[in-house]
C-alpha cells in the first residue's frame, strides 16, 4: 500500500496534459512589470526610481521585515516608472515597470550549466543568502524561504520534507524540473539540510509521475540522507500538514507549525532555486510555469522572467482558445482567477490554466441532502456543511469552536458536494471574520 495522508482527500481528474513537454525558455518581455509584493508578508520597499538603469539580478526592492523578501530585476534596461498597477489578484499594487534593453546580467552570477556540488558556506551564510536572494516557497503560497530555515529557539528540525507531490490537476512544472534538473535539486536539498542541521530529507512524489520517481530515486543514491517517498495520488497531498502526515506519519497539531513535529517542508522548485542562489549566485527572478488547458493548442512548460505579462506565455503556447471562460493562476483547486491577461507572472506563478465555460461553470445551489461527503473528504477532519451554515448565520463563536481556522481552503468540500453548494466560499467569509475577532482579542 502506497503512503498517503491520514484523513479525507479526493482524486480529481489529473489532466496532466503538459507532462511530456520539456521546459522551454520564454522570450524576454519588452516591458517587465515587477510587483513589490510577490510573497506572503510585508511588501518589499522599492529602491529604484524612474530613469534608473538596472541589470538582471539587481535588487530593486528591499525586504521590509523578517517575513518579507527582496525583489530583483529579471531584465536589464531602464526603470520606466514605479506605479500602482493591477496585479493578478485584481487589486492595484505598486510595481516597478522596466523598459527592457538587451539582457545584461550582474557579473557575479554564474550562468554556466556546470553542476557545483561542493557546499562551502556555513549554516548562517546559507540562511542569509537565501533571504538575500528573495527566495519564496515556489509551490504557490510564496512564504519567504529563509523564515522556515530559521528554526525558533527550543525547537529542533529532524527531517526536511521536500514537497514534490504536485497534487493540483493539470500542473507539471515541478514534474519537469525534477526530470531535467535532478542533480541541482539534490544539491539544493543538501544545502537546505545543512542550514537546518538535519541528517535526513524525504522527497514526496505522487505515483502519477512514475518517471520522476524513478529518475529522482536513482539520482538520490549519489547523495546521502536523501530518500524518495512515492505517494498515492491524492489531493491535497501538497498541503504541508498532509505531506508530513503522508511521509512521516506525524500530525501537526491544530494551530501549530510543522517544526512542532520536527519537520520543515520546502517545495522541490524552491530547492532548485536555493541551489542557484548558493552555488550560482543567482537570485530568484525566473522560474518554471505550466501553461495548460484542454482547448489550448500546446500545453507546455516554460521558464519565464518575473514580470512577463501573462499574455506572452499564452501566445507562446498557441494563443488564447476561443472557448476560454476563466484564466486561473495556479491549479484548478486552489488557483486564483485572473481578471485580465495583462497582469504579470510572478514568483508564485506555478501555472496558468485556461478553462472553458462548461468545465468551470457553477451550477445552481440545491438544498443540502446531508450526505456527509464534505465531511468525509475534508483532510482536516472538519464539517464543511456545518461551517457553511454557521458562517451564513454569523455564529462566529461556534465557528471558532468548530475549528474553522484549521481549514486549509483546499476546496475538496465544494468540489465534492452533490448539491453544488459553495461551501468554501462561506467558510472563507467565516474564517476572515473569526480571524479578525481572534486578533482583536489578543
Amino acid at each position, binding site marked *: 500500500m502506497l503512503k498517503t495522508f*491520514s*484523513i479525507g482527500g479526493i482524486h*480529481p481528474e489529473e489532466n496532466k496534459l503538459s507532462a511530456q513537454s520539456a521546459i522551454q525558455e520564454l522570450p524576454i518581455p519588452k516591458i517587465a512589470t515587477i510587483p513589490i509584493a510577490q510573497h506572503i508578508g510585508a511588501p518589499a520597499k522599492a529602491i529604484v526610481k524612474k530613469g534608473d538603469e538596472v541589470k538582471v539580478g539587481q535588487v530593486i526592492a528591499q525586504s521590509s521585515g523578517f517575513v518579507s523578501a527582496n525583489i530583483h530585476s529579471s531584465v536589464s534596461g531602464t526603470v520606466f516608472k514605479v506605479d500602482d498597477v493591477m496585479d493578478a489578484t*485584481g487589486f492595484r499594487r505598486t510595481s516597478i515597470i522596466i523598459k527592457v534593453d538587451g539582457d545584461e546580467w550582474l557579473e557575479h552570477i554564474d550562468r554556466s550549466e556546470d553542476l557545483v556540488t561542493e557546499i562551502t558556506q556555513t549554516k548562517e551564510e546559507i540562511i542569509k543568502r537565501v533571504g538575500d536572494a528573495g527566495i519564496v516557497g515556489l509551490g504557490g503560497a510564496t512564504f519567504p524561504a529563509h523564515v522556515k530555515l530559521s528554526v525558533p529557539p527550543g525547537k529542533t528540525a529532524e527531517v526536511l520534507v521536500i514537497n514534490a507531490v504536485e497534487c493540483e*490537476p493539470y500542473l507539471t512544472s515541478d514534474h519537469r524540473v525534477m526530470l531535467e534538473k535532478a542533480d541541482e535539486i539534490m544539491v539544493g536539498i543538501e544545502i537546505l539540510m545543512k542550514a537546518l542541521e538535519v541528517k535526513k530529507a524525504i522527497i514526496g512524489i505522487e505515483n502519477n509521475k512514475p518517471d520522476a520517481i524513478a529518475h529522482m530515486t536513482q539520482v538520490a543514491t549519489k547523495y546521502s540522507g536523501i530518500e524518495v517517498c512515492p505517494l498515492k495520488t491524492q489531493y491535497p497531498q501538497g498541503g504541508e*500538514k498532509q505531506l508530513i502526515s503522508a511521509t512521516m506519519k506525524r*500530525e*501537526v*497539531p*491544530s494551530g*501549530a507549525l510543522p517544526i512542532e513535529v520536527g519537520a520543515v517542508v520546502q517545495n522541490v522548485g524552491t530547492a532548485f532555486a536555493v541551489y542557484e542562489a548558493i552555488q550560482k549566485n543567482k537570485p530568484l527572478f525566473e522560474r518554471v510555469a505550466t501553461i495548460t488547458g484542454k482547448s489550448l493548442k500546446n500545453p507546455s512548460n516554460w521558464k519565464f522572467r518575473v514580470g512577463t505579462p501573462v*499574455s506572452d506565455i499564452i501566445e507562446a503556447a498557441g494563443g*488564447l482558445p*476561443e472557448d*476560454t*471562460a*476563466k*484564466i*486561473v493562476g495556479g491549479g*484548478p*483547486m*486552489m*488557483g486564483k*482567477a*485572473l*481578471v*485580465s*491577461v495583462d497582469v504579470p507572472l510572478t514568483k508564485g506563478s506555478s501555472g496558468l*490554466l485556461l*478553462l472553458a*465555460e462548461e*468545465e*468551470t461553470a457553477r451550477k445552481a445551489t*440545491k*438544498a*443540502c*441532502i*446531508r*450526505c*456527509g*461527503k464534505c*465531511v*468525509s473528504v475534508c*483532510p*482536516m*477532519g*472538519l*464539517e464543511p456543511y*456545518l461551517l457553511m451554515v454557521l458562517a451564513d448565520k454569523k455564529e462566529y463563536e461556534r465557528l471558532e469552536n*468548530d475549528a474553522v481556522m*484549521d481549514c486549509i*481552503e483546499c*476546496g475538496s468540500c*465544494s*468540489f465534492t458536494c*452533490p*448539491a453544488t453548494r459553495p461551501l*468554501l*466560499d462561506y467558510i*472563507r467569509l467565516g474564517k476572515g471574520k473569526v480571524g479578525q475577532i481572534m486578533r482583536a482579542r489578543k
Partner: protein
Amino acid sequence: MNTKVLVAPSPHIHSGDSIQKNMYGVVFAMLPALLLSFYYFGLGSIIVTLTAVASCYFFEFLIQKYLLKVEPTIKDGSALITGILLAFNMPANLPIWIIIIGALVAIGIGKLTFGGLGNNVFNPALVGRVFLLISFPVQMTSWPKALGFQTSYLDAETGATPLAIIKEGLNKGDSLTDLMAQLPSNMDMFLGNMGGSLGEVAGAALVLGLLYMLVKKIITWHIPVSIIGTVVVFSGILNMASPEAYAGPAFHILTGGLLLGAIFMATDYVTSPMSNKGMLIYGIGIGILSVVIRVFGAYPEGVSFAILIMNAFVPLINVYVKPKRFGEKRK
C-alpha cells in the same frame, strides 16, 4: 484577445456529482431486489410498486405545487426512492387504497411537513410504513407466499414469515429447534424464497445493491456494516447464552427487513449522521434496538422501529459526535 473572463473563487472545477446521480444510483442498486420481487410475487408485486411510486410522485408534485406553492422537486429522484422503498416494505397483496394512504403519509407527513428533501428527520418511507403497520395491522401482515411468478393479486395464498413463525411459536411454548425446522433453509432465505414484504425477502439481491453503492461511493460501509455486525454479535451472545430461547445470527440477518433496513433505509443521507464516527454509533444503536424489539418486543419485526428511533437521535449525534480532527491528540 477575448477580455471577458469569469472571476470566481476556487475551486474552479467540480466533481460532476449531483443529487440526481446519487438518487438514481440508489434506484439502480435497488433493481436486483425489485426484479426478484417481481419474480417471487408476480403481478401483485408490480401493482404494489407502480402504485406506490406513482402516488409518491403525485403527492410530492401536488403538495409542492398547490399547497406549499414551491417549485416541485420531483426530478431529483428522491420521490422515486421513497416510492420503491415504501413498496419494498409492503406485502404483495396490499389493497391499492392502503398503498395510496401510505404514500400520502410518507411524502406529506414524513417529508414535506419538515421542509422537503434535506430537512426531514425521519425516513419518509418508514414513516409511511409504520403508519400503515399500526393502522392496518391485518393487511400489513398478511404475506403471500413466494411461489414464483403468480398472476393473482388480492387472493394470493398467504403464509407467515419466518420471524412470525418463531415469535408466535415461542410465545406458545414450542421449542426453538422444532420451530427452526419449519423454516426454509438459510440458502432459500438468502435467495428470497420465503414469505415477507416485497423488498425484504431477497438478501442476495440486497447485498448486490450494497456492493454497487459501495463501489460507486454512493454510501460508505459504516452504517450497513455496523448494523449487521451489531446484530451478529448481539444475537450471537443471546444464542450462546440460551440456544433454546434465542435464534442465532444467521436467522436474524436473513429474515425480515434487516438487510433491507441496513442497506437501503438506514443509509438514507438525510436521516443518518454526517460523520463516520456518528454513523457507527447510529448503526450500533439500530442493531441493538432491532434485536431487542424482535426478541423482547411485541412485534416479530423491529428494524423499522429501530431506524425511526435512531433517526430521532441523529441531530444529537451530529452535534456531539465530531469527526476526528486532523492533528487532534489521540488519547
